[in-house]
């Protein structure tokens, strides 16, 4: 990296959040959130819609005041030093929020100007992304496709060379190819030393982050690397596929030794106790036998490795 930003010299965490809470009237949007994001990592905030992801992002980008708790971004307090934070963060909201009646180039130029810089000065930062939409630079932003809009939004968020990038659900509503491209871009940005905090409702994107926080109903369930989270899955996981899946799900939940059972696409994932006692322990074989006795045929029962989503379900069940 040829340019070095002064904020990066210290080893203060890029983001430090202590006991942040926020409620809208009676709705508790965030409850006692505490975490750190290290310099230069891709940190994923993963959880379903309405879990509080956007509220957290809006607090950290100084758009919203927390009710209680403290947070710093690059060492600056989000309440007292919000002006300093606004100079160094890039934010891409979940909803496309650029001027639809201005052209691609005009949008980029406005955001460059608002940060007292020019497109030319930081072109190297956005080159990979912007070059893909540059052929359409005289087109109005409103006339772009979803994927191209996202690229323009990312370019606008990057044009002032932020040291931290906040991406709120950047892959929601984007086709799989653009999604893949976006994650590749984030990898590249990381290699340039930019800290990235990204939220997503897609559990399969968790493995693309360095560390993740699983969020549900305004609380963090777990913060760790994706590998560690998967490893900590405490139960045996069995996948069951067969006919009449709806009724099968109910029946599975009644079998002793089954801790939980959820529908995952075309199969059911059964979490079973890993007991040292062989008699009580439920394995794929014993489960298949049990189901056959109950008259189920055409079954496909096998042991599987847990994914992030299984861990999320396990954590929410607690």
């Amino acid at each position, binding site marked *: 990296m040829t340019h070095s930003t002064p904020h990066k010299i210290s080893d203060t965490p890029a983001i430090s959040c202590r006991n942040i809470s926020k409620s809208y009237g009676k709705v508790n949007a965030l409850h006692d959130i505490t975490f750190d994001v290290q310099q230069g990592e891709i940190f994923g905030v993963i959880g379903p819609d309405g879990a509080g992801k956007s509220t957290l992002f809006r607090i950290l980008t100084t758009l919203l005041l927390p009710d209680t708790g403290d947070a710093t971004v690059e060492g600056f307090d989000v309440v007292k030093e919000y002006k300093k934070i606004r100079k160094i963060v890039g934010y891409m909201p979940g909803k496309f929020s650029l001027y639809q009646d201005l052209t691609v180039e*005009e949008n980029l130029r406005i955001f460059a100007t608002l940060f007292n810089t020019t497109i030319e000065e930081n072109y190297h930062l956005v080159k990979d992304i912007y070059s893909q939409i540059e052929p359409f630079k005289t087109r109005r932003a409103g006339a772009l496709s979803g994927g191209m809009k996202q690229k323009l939004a990312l370019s606008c968020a990057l044009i002032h060379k932020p040291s931290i990038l906040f991406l709120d659900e950047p892959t929601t509503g984007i086709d799989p190819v653009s999604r893949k491209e976006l994650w590749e871009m984030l990898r590249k940005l990381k290699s340039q030393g930019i800290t990235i905090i990204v939220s997503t409702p897609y559990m399969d994107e968790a493995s693309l982050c360095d560390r993740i926080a699983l969020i549900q109903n305004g609380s963090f369930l777990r913060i760790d690397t994706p590998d560690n989270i998967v490893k900590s899955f405490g139960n045996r996981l069995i996948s069951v596929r067969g006919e009449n899946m709806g009724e099968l799900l109910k029946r599975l939940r009644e079998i002793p030794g089954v801790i939980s059972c959820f529908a995952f696409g075309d199969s059911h994932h059964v979490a079973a106790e890993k007991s040292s006692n062989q008699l009580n322990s439920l394995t794929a074989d014993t489960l298949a036998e049990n189901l056959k006795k109950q008259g189920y045929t055409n079954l496909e029962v096998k042991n599987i490795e847990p994914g992030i989503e299984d861990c999320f379900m396990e954590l929410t069940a607690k």
Partner: protein
Amino acid sequence: MLKYLLEKEFKQFFRSRALPKMAVIMPFMAMLIFPLAANFEIKNINLAVVDNDKSVTSVKLVNKITSGGYFRLAESAATYGDAMRGVELNRSDIILEIPSNFERDLKREGEAKLFIAANAVSQTKGGLGSAYLAGIIGDFNKSINTQLKDGAITISPRFWYNPRLLYTYFMVPALMVMVLAMVCGFLPALNIVGEKENGTIEQINVTPVNKLTFILSKLLPYWIIGFVVLTICFFVAWFAYGLVPAGSLATIYLFAALFVLSFSGFGLVISNYATTLQQAMFMMFFFLLTFIFMSGLYTPVANMPDWAQKLSIISPLKYIIIVLRQVYLKGSGFTDLLNSFWMLSAFAIFFNGWAVLSYRKKS
């Protein structure tokens, strides 16, 4: 920074399909069409006269009727039937039939009968026209009688500042205010709410641009456009009605600036409370209609019931309308308009203060 934001606003303004056209068409509509459409006075009623008497008195009567400006002698028919055909062909609105012994009866018996027939298809022309006509004839009647009695007093009213009591002269200055209120009060507020609705305001909020710069970038273009539109209004009023302010234009511009400041503050208050364009529009119309009816634009404030007169102090429109009418028609100077000056200043402080406070509360 402000320069680029202004450039962006102007670009967006001129790029939108409707706004630039509206800005040009509005002053012309307001100046040329509205005063005519909102005109209650009657002029140029076409009169058909059937004069069976053809005496000095009857000619005098017809002259008196047609010299007032309300009636135009459309035709002199030989018979009532001919006159009626004129009404049917829409050539005339009212028929006045003078009987053959009109002068003789009047002199001999001090009494004579006239016949008035009005086309009631056009209610104002027919109804009000015949009432006017009866009035003029009544006047004429008196003037004949007073010739007989010496020293009788006749009242001749004189309408100061608007000698011909022209409704347009009364309306045009007030309509200029409406145009200014729309351009400088509504448009910036709707623009800000539009950015809220699109989410673009969030993107601006995370930049180092401070709030004041952002709001100025919203207000300044419409202030400029507002004053351009106001100036167009002055010219239109001059060319179309020969109406030029009796007082100084500088006074008008000064008060217009003060009004614009207070009314855009009002717009900002609304933009703070509305989250969607629909809400903003509804709030705007609610308050604007209240302000208009309380302002004396159509009905003089002095004609309102007591409670309404008291309520009319809440309408900033009232004060600026007073200023424009007085400067235009009466030639009032700044010192004559001090009351309006203080009231408009108070509104400017009140609305802008409220805008700042309500904004703080939300963030």
